[in-house]
């Protein structure tokens, strides 16, 4: 039995198979409409989530399965003090697979040690968010046609953004990927990722502060939200927040085939006028999130549709 704890749990070959399956689901949704008939997904969300929870639940429903669970710790037995290991033992009796989001880092790993059903880590604190990374990889591969030979701009909060860290870990496994890291000094990518991941894998990267300086060279721009609570004073935040608003004018500097992704939610870092630009792919990215989670559920349940 397999679980998904980290995006690196899958080899490059296994990821290819997963994404092939996701693309087949995209092309032939009817073929998979009853693949999970009679199966149940337990959706264990100990903290609020919109996209991730609905995406997992939509994925299971699209496959013909059903969903049970809770959407906050207050409405679960965690409020009474039940441990993760006890909860998952109980849930294993009710469902065939589970997706868990938990504010404590490593909680899904504790769950998978005691579970008799596959566990999907749907986000554990600031640690991992593997299904977002799978979503990002599928979106890039589907829209660009490949995951190697790309110059990728990562913009915003590179210090605390777990989606950026996971994406870097996943993408360094592909050939000729170059990163341009766009962030204010205060939110630079942590040195342990620069040294232990980028430099160790001999990945070409550069760091810039101005988004405008990077845009002309990018195949892909991955925007993230600059979070107010990370700044020591309001002035710095306001300066940086405005610095990274991607608008129509800045998009004029970007190549015609560059695409813009964002893990969402966005606040003001992408101006709504950019939504009309054909290079804005962040809502398609949401749709790919459902396809990849459908493929993941089938893979972890070992269900094959010929």
């Amino acid at each position, binding site marked *: 039995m397999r679980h998904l704890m980290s995006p690196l749990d899958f080899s490059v070959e296994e990821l290819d198979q997963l994404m092939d399956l996701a693309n087949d689901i995209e092309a032939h949704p009817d073929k998979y409409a009853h693949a999970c008939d009679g199966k149940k997904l337990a959706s264990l969300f100990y903290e609020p989530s919109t996209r991730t929870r609905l995406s997992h639940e939509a994925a299971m429903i699209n496959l013909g399965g059903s969903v049970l669970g809770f959407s906050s710790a207050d409405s679960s037995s965690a409020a009474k003090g039940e441990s993760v290991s006890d909860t998952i033992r109980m849930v294993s009796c009710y469902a065939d697979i589970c997706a868990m989001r938990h*504010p*404590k*880092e*490593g*909680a899904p790993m*504790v769950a998978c040690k005691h579970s008799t059903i596959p566990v999907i880590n749907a986000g*554990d*604190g600031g640690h991992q968010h593997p299904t977002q990374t799978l979503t990002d990889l599928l979106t890039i591969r589907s829209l660009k046609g490949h995951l190697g030979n790309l110059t990728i701009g990562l913009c915003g909060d590179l210090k605390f953004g777990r989606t950026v860290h996971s994406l870097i870990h996943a993408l360094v496994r592909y050939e000729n990927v170059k990163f341009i890291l766009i962030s204010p000094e205060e939110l630079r990518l942590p040195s342990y990722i620069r040294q*232990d991941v980028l430099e160790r894998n001999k990945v070409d990267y550069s760091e810039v502060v101005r988004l405008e300086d990077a845009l002309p060279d990018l195949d892909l721009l991955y925007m993230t939200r600059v979070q107010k609570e990370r700044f020591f004073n309001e002035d710095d935040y306001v300066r940086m927040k405005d610095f990274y608003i991607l608008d129509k004018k800045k998009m004029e500097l970007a190549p015609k085939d560059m695409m813009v992704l964002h893990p969402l939610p966005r606040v003001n870092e992408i101006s709504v006028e950019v939504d009309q630009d054909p290079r804005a792919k962040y809502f398609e990215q949401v749709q790919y999130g459902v396809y990849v989670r459908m493929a993941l559920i089938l893979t972890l349940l070992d269900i094959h549709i010929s």
Partner: protein
Amino acid sequence: MVKNTLNVGSISEGFVLDHIQAGKSMEIYKHLNLDKLDCCVAIIKNARSNKMGKKDIMKIECPIDFVDLDILGFIDHNITVNIIQDEKIVSKKELHLPNEITNVIKCKNPRCITSIEQGLDHIFVLTDEEKQIYRCKYCEEKYQSK
């Protein structure tokens, strides 16, 4: 024999741990789970040492496969481990950093599941042997002794 000299007899089978940093022997006693073993243990604290000034020494009399000494590599890899059989030193064990450490150090990350889940082992994994970096198995936070 000099009068008033502390004398600890030789052991027939087991270990002599020498060059332990003075004062560390009780910690080692605990981490090797010697309190759970029915064997003869001698702890000499603050013994005179030309090399170290003061040192601790431990003698553990037991079959040599009874004690897992790997954790010593994490606690202090300068400890000399003499393996005794038939009252003689038959070999010296070279200490390496263990790949995994269980319930020796605790994760200090307040966001880690180990901070709330009862009965959960605190497990650290060696992720970089060269830099001697251990990370929590659950949250991957780097262990820092201070």
